[in-house]
């Protein structure tokens, strides 16, 4: 049975890399598409996507659980994309 995002985040907070892999597979395509549209550069989008998921791994505890996980994830992606545009 598919585990929900919230359940996977709970496991990730306990450093469960299997749960992270599931979440990664679930969202990497969407996040990369979103970043490619923002950055108009597939290579840069791939780089930033990796940083987005590294942040999820390191800061999973910062998701309050109040809203959809996807919203939080895309907010991270958008902020990192804006940073990228600022510095490149």
């Amino acid at each position: 049975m598919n585990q929900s995002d919230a359940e996977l985040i709970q496991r990730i907070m306990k450093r469960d890399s299997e749960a992270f892999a599931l979440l990664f597979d679930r969202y990497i395509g969407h996040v990369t598409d979103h970043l490619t549209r923002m950055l108009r550069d597939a290579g840069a989008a791939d780089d930033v996507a990796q940083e987005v998921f590294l942040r999820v791994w390191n800061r999973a505890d910062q998701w309050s659980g109040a809203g959809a996980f996807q919203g939080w994830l895309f907010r991270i992606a958008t902020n990192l994309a804006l940073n990228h545009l600022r510095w490149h």
Partner: protein
Amino acid sequence: MVVSDCDEFGVESLAVALINEFFNTCSAIHPDADSLADRVAKGPVSPAGAPSAGYLALVNRLGHDGVVASLGDEGVAFKAKRSGDLKLARAVAHPWLSSGMLSHVGVADSAEGEAVQEANVRLEQMIANGAPQVLVERATDTLSERVQEFYAALITREHLRFESRVLFSGRSVMTPNKHFKHDQIGVPEEMAWALFGPFAARELGSDIEVKKRSKKAAQVLDGLMARMWVVGTRAPALSPTSLMAFHPVRVAGDAIQVPILCSKLMDGDFDGDQMALILPVTEEGQKSAQDHLSIVAHLTRDPSLIGREKVHPMHDAMFGLAHLSMTDAGLKELEKVAGESLTRRGKFLDKKHFIALLERVRAGRGSEAALDLSERLQRKGFEAAQQTGASMGAFLGGSLDLPEPPEGDGVDEWRSYVDEMAAEVSQFNHFEDDEFGVIAMLAECGARGNWEQLRQYVAPHGLVYNAARELTPIRHGWRDGLPVDELLARTVGARMGLASALAEMIEVSRDVAKQSAPSGYGVLSRARRSDNPGVVFARAAMKGEVDLLADAYSRLFVGIVD
């Protein structure tokens, strides 16, 4: 300017000394480039030797991927060393050696190098942060891709070509000059002082007069320009005559002025065409330009240039010659110029007649005599054309009694009409007629255009395929103008023609590049033939191979001029 044109024909067919001049002695990346103008002003400059500027640049690039190339008495020895100073967070597959792993990279100061560094930092951070395997693998793949891209950009075939930004060169738009001899070229005032100023300073003993551009300096400048050779080149260079040597003449204005006789050789139709001039600064380069690239040298090497209609009087001049030959008095004038008797086969002498005459003269008296005759005929032709006062009316062909076009759209009736019209127009032979005779003679004598173009000028074009690939009649000719719908239908074919012309040009370039590929089996020759030259160098380094520089291309590339 950048010279790559001379690379296209292979070193065997062109002047070796000149390629060394452009690629090495006058290369803007040569270590002594900054002092070249001063050295020229002080005295004769010797050709630069080995290692050449281009070879040094290649060696520097190879160093980034762990290949050491050393030029010695035996040739170029290739050895492997540990790649550069950047330690990779994880070893990745070697882009050039299928069995090897790469732990270090010597990232050059380039966009690709920065991308490797960024990807490496990210992977380091992931490993340090204990990131999950899926992320580390992804970051490792990215690093591997960036390394691949860095290596792909590091050594390409372009780095093995005779290509360099050349000092003592200039570029401008070209215009025709009917007063120049076939071995002269007009160099704009500013360019003339920039290119030849250091030579004038050498002759005067100092650059004081040259800087003031005094009368005395101008006299010296003009005198030495008349003795020197400058190489003119046009891109894209698809034939050997795209590089031609001339005696420069200082002219007013900003345009380079080309003798009319050479315009076809250089593919110049003067619609904004640009041309570059490169000045060989060594005695060897000057001699090589004269011996290999002057129009006389080109014609001696390739006598078919006459038969291929490259050096005969054209356009107005051809028209004038044909017109002059219509009368017995005119024919006698031409016989005087030609130095032999001439016989009309029709109403006048045409292009074929003059080409045959020039071929006879070249075979009997040599290239210079043939070119001189071509030039004399050209002058006579221009003069005669001017005296005719011939012009073209806006309603050309109005006096012709042409059949009426069909009223319907039937394919068969339009086909018949076009055939009938073509026969009617091409049977015209009233060349003395002031109305249609002038332009008809232009086509008939080979000066310009052809009968099909004349038909399309005066009469409806007939059937063409429109954008929907349907046959549709064009009911008007160029003289009367085409309505929008007909013009759109007509331009489908024109656009297809342009596309196929472009495809043809690309094909020709490929053929030329293939023909000029070096045939040797040394490392440099193999690398230049390879789509991925870095692999050739890496394998040679692993084996400790020595390139004995057995072929002319490789010797010249490293700077050895035999």
